[in-house]
Structure formats: C-alpha cells, structure tokens
C-alpha cells in the first residue's frame, strides 16, 4: 500500500496490520497469544492538545470524578472545563509550560479541544449511560484501564466491542435487550 493511501485510510497514530506482514512467524504466534489473552486491538492513542499527565494528578490526590464529574452521577462522564483546570493551577505550578497553555486558554475563554480516547463510533448508534454502570459498581478501570498509572491516556480495551459489552451484561444479569443501548 502506498504511504499516501495508507495515510488516507488510517487516522494518524493508527497502526494498520499490514505493516506487520513481514514479521517472522515466532512473533506472529506470540502476537496471537497476546491477542487471545488481552483484547488490546491496536487501538490508536490520540494526540492531545496539552501534555496532560493522569498519573501525576492521581498521585496528587485527585479522584477520577473530581474532573470527570458526570461519570458517577451523569449519563455522560464529561471533561473538565478550562476554568476548573485553571482554578487549581492558579496556585499549583502556574509556571509549568503545559499549565501555561491552560492558563492562556482560560484567559482567552477558549475551550481546550481534548481528543476522545475511548470512542464508540456514531455509526454504532449506541447511547452509553455512565451512571447506570457506576450504580452497578463497575469501576472506571474495567473499561478505561488503569488510567491512574498512565502518563498519556491510551485506550486499553476496545469500548466499541459489543461482544464484550453483552458478555458483561449477561454475567451481571443486566438487560441484554438491544434497545438498552441501541436507539
């Protein structure tokens, strides 16, 4: 495949499988075994406008829901507003170059366009409800992986893998009716 064509077909950061075609058989088998054990499916890690470090924030004592406020009590988890970032960083390391980008956005009243890491494509026509899963006691890391120890947030599971959703629904005796999610 020509490089230009590949660039058109795959989003930046995506690693199409055909690149690995020339690998020796041993690596292929190892890869298959890994694939069978963990469903890491070559998920692209999107580039973020600001080098945000999840681990540092968690180590500083913040919880996931401190910033993703809707995750527990809302249908959508949501992203923190620029004001809420700036609110803390006015006191905390305001001179850090990445933090200054936040402060600048706050001054200019511009939103920070964070890239979504875990994506269910619109074409799936799925309406995911965060708080329903929080009620059922599903932890963040079940779907999002251990973001608390990530420097750059990357997808760990393919959240658009319906078989995995249904499996969990059945194990936990949640409804597996189509209309539960697709509508």
């Amino acid at each position, binding site marked *: 495949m020509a490089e230009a064509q590949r660039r058109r077909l795959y989003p930046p950061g995506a690693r199409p499988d055909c690149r690995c075609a020339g690998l020796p058989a041993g690596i292929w088998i190892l890869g298959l075994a890994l694939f069978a054990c963990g469903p890491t499916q070559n998920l692209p890690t999107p580039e973020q406008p600001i080098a945000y470090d999840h681990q540092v924030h968690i180590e500083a004592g913040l919880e996931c829901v401190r910033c993703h406020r809707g995750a527990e009590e809302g249908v959508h988890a949501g992203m923190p507003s620029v004001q809420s970032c700036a609110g803390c960083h006015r006191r905390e390391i305001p001179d850090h170059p990445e933090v200054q980008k936040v402060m600048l956005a706050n001054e200019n009243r511009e939103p920070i366009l964070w890239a979504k890491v875990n994506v269910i494509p619109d074409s799936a026509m799925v309406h995911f409800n965060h*708080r*329903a899963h929080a009620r059922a006691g599903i932890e963040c890391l079940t779907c999002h992986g251990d973001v608390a120890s990530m420097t750059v947030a990357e997808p760990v599971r393919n959240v658009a893998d319906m078989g995995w959703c249904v499996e969990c629904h059945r194990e936990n005796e949640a409804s597996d*009716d189509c209309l539960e999610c697709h509508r």
Partner: protein
Amino acid sequence: MTRWGMAIDLDRCTGCEACVVACAAENNIQTVGEEQAREGRAMHWLRIERYYEGEFPDVRTRFMPVLCQQCGAAPCEPVCPVYATYRNPEGLNAMVYSRCIGTRFCANNCPYTVRVFNWFDAEFPAPLDSQLNPDVSVRPGGVMEKCTFCVQRIQAGKDEAAQEEREVADGDVKTACQQSCPTKAIAFGDLDDPDSEVSRWAESPRAFSLLGDLDTRPGVVYLSGTEWREPAE
C-alpha cells in the same frame, strides 16, 4: 414485568398535529422536502388520518392519529431476514437500526403502513443540527425506522427511577406526542399495571383496536364514543 402501551381518545383529538411536530423534533426525523413527499417518501412516525363524513352542509371531520401499534403479534417481525425488528421483553416492537439492511419487507408487511424508509442520508444543515436530540441516533440512508414509543424517554425514566432507588411510577415516562397534546388525548404507561392511567383507559367501553380483525394484538388502544367506521372505498 412492564408492558408499555398507549391509549388515544379520538373524541378528544382535534387533529391539530402538535403530536406530529413533537414527534419529529424528539426523534430527529428528517424532512424529505416536497418532491420526495410527493413520491410518498414523507417520514412521519405519527400521522393524523382525516376522514370526512356526511353530505354538505351536514358534514363532520374525524381524526385519527396513527403510529406504530407495537403489535403483540407483529406482521413486520417474521419477515425481517436479519432480525432487525423483534418483540422486546417490555412489549415494544424494537427496531435496531444498526442491524437493518433495508430490504423494506417489514414496511411492506405492516397493515398500518407506519414504517418509513430512509431513502437518503438525513441532512440537518447548520443550524438545524443544533436542535438534534442527542439521545436519539440520526439514522443513515437505507435504514427503516418507525415509532419507538420514545424508547429514549423510557430508558431515561428507568434510569432516573433507579438513581432515586425506586420503581418506575405511572406518569414517569411521557412520550413526546403525549406531552404535546393540548387536549390530553393520549395516555401512556404500563398496561400490566391495572391502576395505570393507560390501563384504565383501555378498559373503557369505548376502547377498540385498530384493524382488530387482523389479530395483531396492538399495544395501542383507541377510544371512541361513536362507532368508528373504516372509510368507504
């Protein structure tokens, strides 16, 4: 178990079509334009049928809102080759857009002709896209669609009740058409709950099913004080 149902009082219906507008707004139903409408491709999930009776000057107009009857024995279901439409445990005739391959057999087999087909991709040029309901998917071209009994509102009602740690109460879930009806001609709720408004309406001596002879066992009940005649051909 819940069995969602609707009752429509035809004696209250004035044919104002507020329900039709509310339905389109709630469910992101695309408008197809004059030309396509002329081809019979208008996409209302709910339509008001209008019947004229008598001879001038002694005439009367009668209105009947017709939507998916959410049949208990739905003729649309067994003809779908990909199980995109099925009877869900709560009495809804479910439509799974992502499964639909657009054979249109279901619409062909529906005696109420309430299923509509997306002949083209929906277009919501700005600023119309700002008014789309985020809880409802915009259906792509080649997919069949129909009234869902506002399933997004049903799910939201159940979610709200669960969040407050209680059961879903009668009146928690209101469909868009019901909410917008100025004469309150529509009741919606659980038909398995004998105390619900819709059950009480359904037990009225005025109650009847549309095309009842077909034994489709509809989840929609109509109420009319006068004998409802099918229009003469």
